[in-house]
């Protein structure tokens, strides 16, 4: 290797090192000037949230919920899914006094019949989704509030909490349901609603028809006889419209209503 070659090697090494140094300096400067200050609590809270991005809190993701908590737009107990433990972690991260977790909710399909039991007005042939069936002549069931049984709710459930077989009433698994509300939006008949998770006894019917009509097409539909209202020892049942409502705070699960209901509409889930 002669002197000229050595010079080439040395100059190129120096030049590259120089460029590297300049670029590094530039980047360091840029990161200093343009740095975005992220509250370390956001990261910390986001980690303690369940991370399933279910949307039950009203925010599009767990990270967005964490941002909202830090910004003071949401309470530390905003995550219903996380329960006690998450609320505790979030409170600690925020450095605030621990508050009680929100009560958990549970999605309930207020229909006890489904296409197996309910009488059909006509045979439906077509796209096998509840939304499509509902659009064809207002659904194929005699009942305008009966489950159509094509499982639109099960298809959208992000937690596999809804078990469904075609043509049957879907079942919601209490342990898996996070009350995210996706099934409520998906149901074209609007018969799924959120109930407090501590509630054990439910009236499984959403009809708006009169009792005499209901009897004609459904064996398990509420006929509005009010016997449950009269017989409940805790006076936990009141009539709202045609359907009795159970107050979960008063209900002590005496199961009297389940026994007296002539159509077996009230069930323990």
């Amino acid at each position, binding site marked *: 290797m002669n002197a000229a070659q050595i010079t080439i090697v040395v100059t190129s090494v120096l030049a590259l090192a120089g460029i590297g140094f300049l670029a590094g300096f530039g980047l360091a400067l840029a990161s200093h000037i343009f740095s975005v200050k992220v509250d370390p609590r956001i990261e910390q809270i986001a980690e303690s949230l369940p991370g399933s991005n279910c949307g039950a809190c009203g925010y599009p993701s767990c990270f967005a919920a964490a941002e909202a908590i830090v910004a003071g737009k949401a309470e530390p107990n905003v995550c219903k899914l996380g329960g006690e433990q998450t609320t505790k972690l979030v409170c600690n991260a925020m450095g605030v006094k621990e508050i009680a977790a929100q009560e958990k909710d549970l999605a309930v399909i207020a229909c006890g019949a489904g296409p197996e039991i309910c009488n059909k007005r006509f045979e439906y042939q*077509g*796209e096998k989704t509840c939304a499509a069936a509902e659009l064809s002549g*207002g659904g194929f069931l005699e009942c305008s509030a009966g489950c159509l049984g094509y499982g639109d709710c099960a298809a959208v459930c992000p937690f596999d909490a809804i078990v469904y077989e075609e043509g049957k009433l879907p079942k919601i698994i209490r342990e898996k349901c996070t009350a995210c509300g996706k099934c409520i939006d998906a149901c074209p008949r609007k018969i799924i609603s959120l109930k407090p998770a501590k509630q054990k006894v439910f009236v499984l019917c959403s009809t708006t028809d009169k009792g005499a009509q209901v009897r004609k097409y459904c064996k398990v539909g509420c006929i509005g006889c009010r016997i449950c209202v009269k017989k409940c020892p805790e006076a936990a049942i009141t009539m709202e419209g045609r359907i009795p409502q159970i107050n979960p705070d008063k209900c002590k699960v005496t199961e009297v209503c389940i026994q007296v209901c002539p159509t077996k509409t009230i069930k323990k889930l």
Partner: protein
Amino acid sequence: MSKTFPGGIHPSEHKKRSKKEQIRKAADPKIAVIPLCQHIGTPAEPLVNVGDIVKIGQPLGDSERYVSAAVHASIGGKIIAIEPRLTPFGAKVLSVVIENNGDQDVHPSVRPYPNFKDLSKTDIRKIIRGAGIVGLGGAAFPTRVKLQPPPDKVIKTIIINGAECEPYLTCDYRLLIEQPKKVILGLKAIMKPTDALEGIIAIEDNKPEAITAIQKAIDEEVSHHNLRVAVLKTKYPQGAEKQLIKAITKREVPSGGLPADVHCIVNNVGTAVAIAKALTTGMPLIERIVTVTGGSISEPSNLLVRIGTPFSELVEQCGGFLEEPTKIIMGGPLMGISVPSIDVPVIKATSGILVPSKKELDDLEPEPCIRCAKCVDSCPQYLLPNLLGDASENDRFDLSKSYGALDCIECGVCSYVCPAKRNLVQLIKLSKNELLRKK
């Protein structure tokens, strides 16, 4: 050369059964159920009470709202109930139930108007509004609204739609042959308030008798320089509004636009005749022509039916069923809807009652798309039904929108040609519904 549009299909016509049957009057119903919402738009408010005695032509309901139509008593009798009753569309709609008492007197509000020539533009619009006339082709859009396009739109052409491209149906065909004069009068009545320059009666080339009859009627008119018959190629959906305009005027209705955007208004033959009747006799829309046909009907006929007559009574008057019906369709086989029960009443939109035999019905399970693109070739709206179907199946309604789902006219061509028997129109209808709901 007959005019036409690109795309479309050639389904077998099945019109022979009822083509030669003269329109005959159906017996008045014993009990007429008249829904207060038979049209697109706001339901009418009831004007009568239970227990009232009504006469033929008496208004039963009306609405102040712009897109709405009045409803009238089609028979004389006592109102026995005003309650939600099942309509052909499957929903329960507030209806007036009249028990026939055989009274044939008409209500005093029904009286002939002065000569057509003496009527002003507003008079004609008022008469059409008061007579509760809606599009009788099947969509039942209030005609008065059609005749009052936005002031910035100039109307040049009025098209009377006598294409009747739906297989099986022959009600418009019979009207063209039997009452050509009324069709022409109806056309003139529509031309007057809209200041249209030209009136065209569009007929498919498989109805030569109708073309002759209308041509003769036009020639007999005193001034007929602005009236003509347009002969169209026999193809489905030739009678769809946008396709009809494209075929006749070569103008294309823009996406999301109205026929008025291309200076046209299209009305059905039945609507024209109803307008003519309202102008000459003052009688509101209380009856219409219904084709009762299909492989299960013993004597297919074209009947003049009072609104509110149950389907079952009409089937009886056509000799009853040949075999146990599996499906009863209101309208034609391609755009018609299956009705939930045979006891539903005839409404203003009932152009036909089709009861196909088991042989005529296809009961195939849908299978996955084989990417043959037949639907793409035949879609008269140049849409991509295969992709629209996929988008709808996967709940990607944002994609449906960008693929132009809202431009679909629901003609059913894609479902008809699909070798995999996919429920394409149903899927597109679903996404349309979803998109309109979110709007």
